[in-house]
């Protein structure tokens, strides 16, 4: 069977030979136009004069569009219809596209765009969380509040209390392949779009709206992305729409690729958050009541900010049972890039808040933070013991009222602590710190519990299309997109397993809105859960038809027909799969089917913050040890041990890759990746020269990753679990290890903010020394 095998990525051979094609590599006709945006140079205000004469006269320029020249407002928003492709008079952030240039080559378009003469009237920009709070600049009317129990009373009555604030920065996706799209006009006014996007259906929808066409006139194809991480969920819309507008107006193909600096300046990033907390707890560090206020900087447009902020609230508990809790979430509108989806989708920020609370409680009691974390864990999942018909199991509910019935972190934490020798190493770190005044070590073990499903319930659906050809070869298509995560291979493994054939028999084809319609974004880690099930449903349909026909011919029982090892066994008869396909074709059996899947059991009321938004939780735990130079703030990760839950892994090799990559990206978010805007709202870190993602030399010297092998309790595809986002939050172990190292410098609490750059670490060292 092909599932659960560690098969390499389906396109690995193409990648190592340079033959894998990204959007920018697709050969286009010689008359293709290349596009660039001219960007606003102020963060807030109005354009008083836009002189584009020099742009129009620049070499190679074939056309220039302003907002007034567009066929419609060409809205790019995935939600609130508040993102016009080009700003009119009103400027909402520095980097906002003002006009569009089409030229004979990419460089000519960019050089021309730089020649615009723009006069502005600048107004005071709302840049920071404090600016936005002062100006009451928000999305939705006021803060969203969810609560369970009386947190206020529980905090007041508790034997101990802590309170504090943690600031955490955003994060640039830095997909290695920048945003790219191309549009080719077709006969009858139809449009073909190639886009580097996680959401082809949305591109189709937005392009159709912009051009005034029905969705059936627009076809979007996505073979692969050079990384997405959430940054290509909505942020690719503008390029695709721009290309389609130019292609429609000129009848020529059009392509757009952001230069890296433009990509940083134009597109949204992870939301930065400020989280304020007050907690009451007992002598063992068990939380009795907690009040958490999350403030998110959402940027100029609503984009995906509401579900991101919801997910931050949904992860404000992480792995901990909070008996009385009040959550308040502020979604703040600012004159900055529109913060957007990024791996974890608000979950990491929500979790970092409660992890800070745990760390702070442990420090105030002088206890090992791991001990405090474990004391607060949800109760272990166990088989329900029923005595006299009454369940004795005590239900533990999340702050939003969902029962946590699959909690496995007790066992996982135990296993990881053993494997990495946590207790002994913690003692050695303490000894080492006592002997070394300058270099300090720190160690931390942190858990992850991440909810799987889109929180907008209707998005939890997927479609697939499967064909079996008369020679026994199989073509498969589904709505998921490939951004490197190995989704296509995993789903192909599902198809191969259904028919009992080798993986090579299954052809993986590009995501195409003409093949499978109305798909959701490949996001929320749901790619293989949803698309794997949809493909399986299609395969099951075809297999049942084949079995019925082959069995009828032989007066056999269709239920006894076996598909395995490339053969079909019907009683004593054995056919190769190809012979079986040929026989079914001859017998006039339809060998093509669609498949559909919708996630069961979900019910969620986001206004009240109550219900079951997730089908299940994915779990993980990581232990990191660091060393910090307290004179310079420089630091290194000495060792990281990870234990991560993928259910019954569909492909352990691909899952390991997601875990390792997710951890490193998460550690980057909390350490080196710092976004800096100046006082006028210009992003100063707009290139890799100033924005530092982890390099190979930054990864842990010892890096030990293991899968926790246990099937998903829910009926997911082959009982696997989603793996795209959850490992990202394993990076929190590095942040808390750094905080632990700082705590070794003095009696105070480090109250470290993220990212923990050398500057912030030094400030924290000073703080604890008092």
């Amino acid at each position, binding site marked *: 069977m092909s599932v659960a095998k560690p098969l*390499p*990525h389906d*396109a*690995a*051979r*193409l*990648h*190592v*030979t*340079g*033959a*894998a*094609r*990204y959007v*920018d*590599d697709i*050969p286009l006709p010689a008359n293709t136009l290349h596009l660039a945006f001219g960007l606003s140079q102020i963060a807030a205000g109005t354009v008083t004069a836009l002189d584009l004469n020099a742009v129009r006269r620049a*070499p190679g320029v074939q056309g220039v569009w302003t907002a007034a020249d567009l066929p419609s407002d060409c809205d790019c928003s995935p939600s609130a219809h508040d993102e016009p492709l080009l700003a009119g008079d009103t400027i909402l952030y520095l980097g906002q596209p003002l006009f569009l240039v089409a030229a004979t080559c990419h*460089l000519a378009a960019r050089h021309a765009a730089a020649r615009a003469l723009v006069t502005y009237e600048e107004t005071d920009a709302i840049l920071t969380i404090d600016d936005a709070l002062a100006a009451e600049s928000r999305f939705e009317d006021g803060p969203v509040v969810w609560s369970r129990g009386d947190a206020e009373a529980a905090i007041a009555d508790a034997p101990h209390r802590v309170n504090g604030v943690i600031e955490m920065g955003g994060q640039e*996706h*830095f*997909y*290695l*392949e*920048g945003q790219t799209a191309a549009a080719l006009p077709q006969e009858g006014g139809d449009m073909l779009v190639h886009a580097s996007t996680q959401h082809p259906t949305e591109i189709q929808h937005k392009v159709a709206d912009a051009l005034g066409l029905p969705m059936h006139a627009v076809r979007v194809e996505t073979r*692969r*992305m*050079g*990384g*997405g*991480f959430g940054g290509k969920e909505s942020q690719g819309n503008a390029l695709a729409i721009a290309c389609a507008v130019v292609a429609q107006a000129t009848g020529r193909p059009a392509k757009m690729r952001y*230069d*890296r600096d433009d990509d940083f300046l134009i597109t949204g990033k992870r939301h930065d958050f400020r989280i304020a907390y007050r907690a009451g707890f007992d002598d063992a560090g068990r939380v009795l009541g907690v009040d958490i206020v999350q403030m998110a900087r959402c940027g100029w447009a609503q984009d995906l900010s509401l579900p991101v902020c919801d997910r931050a609230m949904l992860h404000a508990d992480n792995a901990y049972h909070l008996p009385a809790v009040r959550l308040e979430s502020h979604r703040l509108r600012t004159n900055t890039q529109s913060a957007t989806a990024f791996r974890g989708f608000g979950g990491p920020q929500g979790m970092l808040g409660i992890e800070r609370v745990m760390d702070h409680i442990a420090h105030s009691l002088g206890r090992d933070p791991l001990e405090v974390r474990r004391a607060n864990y949800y109760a272990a999942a166990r088989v329900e013991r029923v005595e006299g018909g009454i369940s004795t199991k005590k239900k533990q509910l999340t702050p939003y009222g969902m029962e946590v019935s699959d909690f496995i972190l007790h066992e996982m934490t135990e296993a990881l602590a053993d494997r990495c020798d946590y207790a002994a190493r913690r003692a050695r770190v303490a000894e080492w710190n006592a002997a070394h005044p300058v270099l300090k070590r720190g160690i931390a073990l942190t858990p992850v519990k991440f909810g799987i499903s889109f929180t907008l319930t209707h998005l939890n659906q997927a479609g697939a299309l499967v064909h079996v050809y008369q020679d026994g070869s199989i073509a498969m298509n589904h709505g998921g997109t490939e*951004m*490197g*995560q*190995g989704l296509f291979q995993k789903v192909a493994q599902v198809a191969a397993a259904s028919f009992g054939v080798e993986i090579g028999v299954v052809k993986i084809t590009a995501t195409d809105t003409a093949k499978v319609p109305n798909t959701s974004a490949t996001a929320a880690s749901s790619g293989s859960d949803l698309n794997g099930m949809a493909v399986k449903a299609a395969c099951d349909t075809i297999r049942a038809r084949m079995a019925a026909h082959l069995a009828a011919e032989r007066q056999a029982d269709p239920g006894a027909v076996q598909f395995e090892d490339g053969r079909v066994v019907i009683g004593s008869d054995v056919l190769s799969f190809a012979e079986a396909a040929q026989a079914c074709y001859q017998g006039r059996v339809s060998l093509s089917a669609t498949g559909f899947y919708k996630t069961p059991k979900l019910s969620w009321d986001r206004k009240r913050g109550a219900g079951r938004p997730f089908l299940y939780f994915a779990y993980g735990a990581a232990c990191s040890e660091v060393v910090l130079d307290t004179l310079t703030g420089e630091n290194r990760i000495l060792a990281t041990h990870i234990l991560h839950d993928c259910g019954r892994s569909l492909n352990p*090799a*691909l899952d*390991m*890759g997601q875990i*390792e*990559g*997710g*951890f*490193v*990206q998460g550690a980057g978010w909390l350490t080196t990746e710092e976004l800096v805007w100046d006082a006028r709202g210009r992003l100063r870190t707009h*290139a*890799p*020269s100033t924005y530092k*993602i982890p*390099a*190979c*030399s*930054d*990864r842990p*010297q010892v*890096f030990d*990753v293991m899968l926790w092998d246990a099937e998903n309790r829910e009926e997911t595809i082959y009982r696997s679990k989603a793996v795209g986002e959850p490992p990202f939050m394993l990076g929190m172990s590095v942040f808390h290890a750094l905080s632990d190292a700082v705590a070794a410098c003095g009696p105070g609490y480090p109250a470290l903010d993220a990212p923990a750059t050398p500057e912030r670490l030094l400030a924290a060292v000073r703080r604890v020394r008092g």
Partner: protein
Amino acid sequence: MTTHDITITINGEAITATVPARRNLVDFIRQEAGLTGSHVGCEHGVCGACTVEVNGTPVRGCLMLAVQADGAHVTTVEGLADTGRGHRLRAAFQTHNALQCGFCTPGMLASALEYVEGGGTADRTAIREHISGNYCRCTGYQAIVDAIVEVIETGEGA
């Protein structure tokens, strides 16, 4: 814009073209030679996705102008695949899953090849230092280092 007539031999094939003075080498390779295996990631010399060999030395294709490479011999990832050079590294990258989205892979292979062909040892710290000029946003680098170590430990050459 001033233009120049130049000839660059790419993967053994001489390509003559008239190019603007400011065209960089990786754009020349992608546009004039139509070889799209070399990728453009950052266009200012930091990410390494554009790494190609010029006269036997790895070079950032976005930092070198095409006119500077006039008369040079350039080898790209496609050229390596055609000649079989680096086949053990390519195989190891596949079996170790040293790639996910694959966008960094051609540049990463060029740097890895320089290390292995230059007689680099299987010391993981040295390997990490050597490839730390090539960014990968997907893999966390673990599998890349594993692949290079395996190539060095299990045989002769890259």
